[in-house]
């Protein structure tokens, strides 16, 4: 089981029951989403600082995903600050309209995005994939009232998790085999690179589906009973 983002640690957050953690994540997300402007910034800052301290995670790692968002965030802020037009412009020039409303909205979107990204970063780094799955499974359980087959859903998610490292290796093997046959993934014209996608993607899907086929036969032979059919 690969855990690309999990950081081993011993904090309160690491040891916390994953279901509670997941629900906590959802609640914190909602709190952030309804807080705006100055008050919102303070609430978000307090919440995040507390969580970072509780998690004992290195700050650099927590803030890492923000790096790739940087450009995106600037764009969003500018688009709102400069172009949001509902009549109240402080300064306007053609389609550019700088307004309090626009700046405020841009700010809030950026604030929410940063806060939620950090929240999810903390969550992912303190929770193993198995725990995440369990947390989601338990959170979804009440939906059984609506005849939604939550057991099947969590089975699907665990199988998906188990498949990931397997498929990763398969694709690596396929990539090497095609490179050996002369495929060009890293150099050459755009055309050759495009043509090289098919020899990578098609076998990847075939081998993935073949494994799925074999696994489904195996679990059926071992007496798998679906949730869905038990609702009928």
């Amino acid at each position, binding site marked *: 089981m690969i855990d690309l983002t999990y950081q081993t640690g011993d904090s309160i957050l690491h040891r916390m029951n994953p279901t509670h953690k997941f629900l906590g994540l959802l609640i914190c997300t909602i709190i952030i989403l309804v807080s705006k402007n100055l008050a919102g910034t303070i609430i978000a800052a307090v919440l995040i600082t507390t969580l970072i301290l509780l998690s004992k995670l290195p700050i650099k790692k927590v803030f890492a995903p923000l790096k790739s968002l940087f450009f995106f965030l600037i764009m969003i802020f500018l688009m709102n600050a400069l172009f949001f037009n509902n009549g109240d412009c402080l300064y306007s020039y053609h389609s550019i309209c700088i307004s309090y409303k626009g700046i405020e909205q841009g700010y809030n979107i950026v604030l929410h995005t940063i806060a939620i990204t950090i929240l999810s970063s903390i969550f992912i780094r303190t929770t193993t994939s198995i725990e995440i799955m369990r947390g989601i499974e338990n959170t979804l359980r009440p939906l059984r009232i609506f005849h939604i087959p939550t057991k099947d859903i969590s089975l699907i998610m665990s199988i998906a998790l188990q498949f990931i490292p397997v498929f990763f290796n*398969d694709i690596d*093997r*396929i990539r*090497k*085999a*095609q*490179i*050996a*046959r*002369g*495929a060009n993934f*890293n*150099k050459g014209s755009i055309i050759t690179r495009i043509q090289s996608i*098919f*020899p990578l993607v*098609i*076998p990847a899907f*075939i*081998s993935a589906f073949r494994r799925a086929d074999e696994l489904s036969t195996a679990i059926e032979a071992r007496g798998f009973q679906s949730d869905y059919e038990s609702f009928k």
Partner: protein
Amino acid sequence: MQLEIKHATVRYSNSDKILDNIDLNITEGQFLGITGKAGCGKTTLLETIAGFHKPESGFVLLDGQNIYEKRFVSQSFRKRLQIVFQFPENQFFESDIWNEIGFGLKNISSSPEEKERKTIEAMLAVGLDINEMKNVSPFALSGGQKRRLALACAIVVSPEILLLDEPFSGLDGDGQNQIISILKDLHRNGTTILMVSHDPNVLSEVADKIVVLDAGKIQFNDIPSRVFADKYLCDKLGIGQPETKITADLIGLDLDEDLTYSNFIKKLEKKYLAAHD
């Protein structure tokens, strides 16, 4: 053609050495078997020679030139050396056999007639009927046919050197025999072959020399009869002995450094006839 591995050490990131100071000289036209217990580094050795793992120290030299000199291994190298991975049928993607084999020819600058000729040659060499099979999808073939198709895909470019990783995995007796006969033909025609296998029977049947790896180091690089001579050592290295050797030892038969079945039968006949004279 000179293929040398000099003091090569290969390590995956953050792990122990998979290959430790490997020195290997492969002569032209040789059939070299590579064996060892699971996890000893056989596949990594093959992949290193094929240009997929740059050694952390040491070199892989083809005709004196370091294949890892530039960032990407050259296409001309790929024309001279082909590798068939384990379970190669996982690489198929074309809608018919003709195009699947032809994929390897895309980077060879030759005329369409030349490409057609080479594809037909490859299909013949592996025993796939051209008329029946031309338009069949690779996915519709049987296990043995798929394996032979994968072999065709590699030999279509007429490589000087052919690397194979466990080419017999999952094949029945017939399938295995077909592959062995194809490899023997290639060997007879001058192709240098490096084959990873854990089956001592096949190795003693086809290999000129066998390299035994243990924990990333070469323990043996010798003819089959000397590699498989000592039962205790073979057990320790996890490689087993061929049936011909085991049986010959049991009945006190001298195989004269040749562990092949044909020699075994010959020597057995002689002994039987001598005993009944």
